[in-house]
């Protein structure tokens, strides 16, 4: 697949009572809101964030030839030595794998070979799914830090962690560089590093449906912390009147039944928020019960009424 050169420009302008830097990364519109009047500083901070976001994108993207992910996925069974950052992300994904009883699995990306969520009628055959399942399963991966080895035909994909990780890394950079309160938002996964000077909080909108099925975007006042959303109502398949959500269960190869349309979670960091919302989605019908038990703030859209 030929790739258009990605747009690596940044733009800084005035936002709502703050300065706003914008750029594109990880297939999302990204913005950095800086609670300051210093345009030069805002440009510097946006540059800092954009560079880090692009670095992470290039390093862990599935589409960049020659990066660590590509080398792992084309190693043909050989062990690959990974650097510290990659090792930490892999360790993190192992923890998630354990916490989700195997449903969060970075080797599950190959399911995209048989599942194409384009709103059409085409669900794969059982045979096709069981074939591809032979190449899935973290238990099949030989991971002894820093060497990773897996059978040919298997792939790892850090897409489920990457964006939230990038948000938090960038937030860390900003905290070390400036005292100004900032909000980093990568396509809906966001974190606020502090309270803006002249307001009580950053105002963030969450798309939701209320109990009467009406679009009732909720306004959340975020002082500090992260918000992340899992789910995408536009990606699904319709077959025999049954809707198949794009949340696939790697232990079966099929969509998680009764997955919510989307889940938004508020947590101390964007990564925690993102992982909790992902774990919630993987719980399907038990999503709300699970998140209730975790004691976190969440907004769950089932398409039949949002439950905060």
């Amino acid at each position, binding site marked *: 697949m030929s790739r258009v050169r990605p747009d690596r420009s940044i733009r800084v302008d005035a936002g709502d009572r703050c300065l706003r830097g914008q750029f594109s990364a990880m297939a999302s519109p990204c913005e950095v809101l800086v609670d300051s009047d210093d345009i030069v500083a805002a440009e510097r901070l946006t540059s800092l964030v954009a560079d880090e976001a692009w670095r992470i994108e290039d390093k862990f993207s599935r589409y960049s030839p020659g990066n660590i992910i590509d080398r792992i996925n084309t190693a043909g069974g050989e062990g690959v030595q990974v650097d510290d950052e990659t090792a930490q992300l892999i360790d993190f994904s192992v923890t998630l794998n354990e*916490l989700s009883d195997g449903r969060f699995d970075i080797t599950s990306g190959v399911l995209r070979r048989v599942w194409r969520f384009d709103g059409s009628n085409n669900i794969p055959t059982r045979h096709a799914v069981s074939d591809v399942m032979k190449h899935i399963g973290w238990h099949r991966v030989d991971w002894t830090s820093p060497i990773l080895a897996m059978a040919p035909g298997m792939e790892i994909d850090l897409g489920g962690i990457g964006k939230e990780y990038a948000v938090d890394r960038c937030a860390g950079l900003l905290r070390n560089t400036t005292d100004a309160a900032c909000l980093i938002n990568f396509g809906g996964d966001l974190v606020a590093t502090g309270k803006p000077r002249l307001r009580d909080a950053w105002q963030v909108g969450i798309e939701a449906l209320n109990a009467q099925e009406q679009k009732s975007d909720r306004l959340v006042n975020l002082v500090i912390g992260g918000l992340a959303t899992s789910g995408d109502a536009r990606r699904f398949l319709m077959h025999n009147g049954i809707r198949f959500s794009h949340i696939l269960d790697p232990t079966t190869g099929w969509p998680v039944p009764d997955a919510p349309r989307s889940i938004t979670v508020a947590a101390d960091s964007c990564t*925690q928020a993102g992982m909790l919302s992902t774990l919630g989605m993987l719980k399907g019908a038990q999503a709300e019960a699970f998140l209730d038990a975790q004691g976190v703030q969440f907004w769950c859209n089932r398409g*039949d009424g949002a439950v905060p």
Partner: protein
Amino acid sequence: MKNTDKISITAALTAATCTLLGTTALQPVQAQEEPGWDFNTSLLYYAESDDRVQDLSLKTLSRRTFVDDRILSLGLTVDALTGATPNGALPQSFPQTFTKPSGKNTFTTPPGEFPIDDSFRDTRVAISADWEQPLGRLYAMNVGVSASAEYDYLHLGVNAKLSRDFNNRNTTLSGGFAFASDQLDPVGGVPDPLTQMRNVRDDDDGNGGRASNDSKEILDLVLGITQVMSRNFLMQFNYSYSDSSGYLNDPYKILTSVDPITGEAVPVPQIPGTEGPSHLNYYENRPDTRSKHSLYTQGKYYMNGKVLDASYRYMTDDWEIDSHTIDMRLRWPIGDDKYLEPHLRFYTQTAAEFYQISLVDDGQPLPEYASADYRLADFDAITAGLKFGWKTGGGNDMSVRLELYSQSGNVSPSQLIGSQADQDVYPDMDAIIFQYSYMFGK
């Protein structure tokens, strides 16, 4: 397979995240959902033909949505009423004089006109408060209070409703009740039913021996089903039961007593030095209980951007009134932000068992119950209106509507005595409804 201890997931995740990000503990998240405000306000002008009732009304409904879908609604209505309403007496070919409800003076109606009682209603204020919240995932409840006050009427009410969803929220069952306790303080006191209209008095006792007030209680029960029929079609079915007891009369309404042959009002001899009614009239009387049953069904149907709203209601009660109401609206969008909504309503009711246009002065005892209140008669009514709505620049909703309401009586010829056959015996009415509304919020 580990059935992981649920609580420890957050802790494990927090620890793992700290390791990943190389940070020590981060500050705890502070996120608070903002409650939303919704305001619905309107100005209403209502005016009937023939100098009858006119009403200017300001209404507001404020809703505040709290987290967890809990909603507080506060309503306030202020009405400025003027004009008068037919008092039940029949028009005659000669002038008639009546004592005003206050008992302090009289008024005279010219020949050929329906006597109208200028019931000096001036201002009415009504308030309501309603609390709505979900109970768990499938139940929702509503509780509310209402009160209204005008110079001769006080209303206090409570209501509550419980509803539950079934079938993936396609079916909602609901049940509710409302209880109201109303008190009437009529000007001039409560008249003795089926006694003659009194003369003007000049004694200082405001009510001349009458009770100064009376009361009634109303209990309403509603059972309803809302059902999603298809992606574009929603229906509702309600069964209601209403029980009123207490003073159900209209203290200002009378019946003319007529000559059994000519059908004309019977003159009353005037005592020199007193003022009073020129003809024989009696205060009305209705039973002191009333129970009503209603079946109501409504459907909303979406057709390519247009929405048809149609409803039918059947009501029957133990006063032998039956009614049918058909109400239809069609919302017709114009572009993205405007719409036109024509409206048609048909109504018909049969008369109360004790409704009669007049009493007969034939020496026989008066009936136990009798009323000439035009609202208890057999009549048809039609409403036709048009509403135009648009979104303002700020994304809020405004609309205006203009409607015509027309009532026409069906008094059966068998009720007519003598010259009544050539007279107008039912005060047909036309009214204009004009309302401007503005909804904004969030």
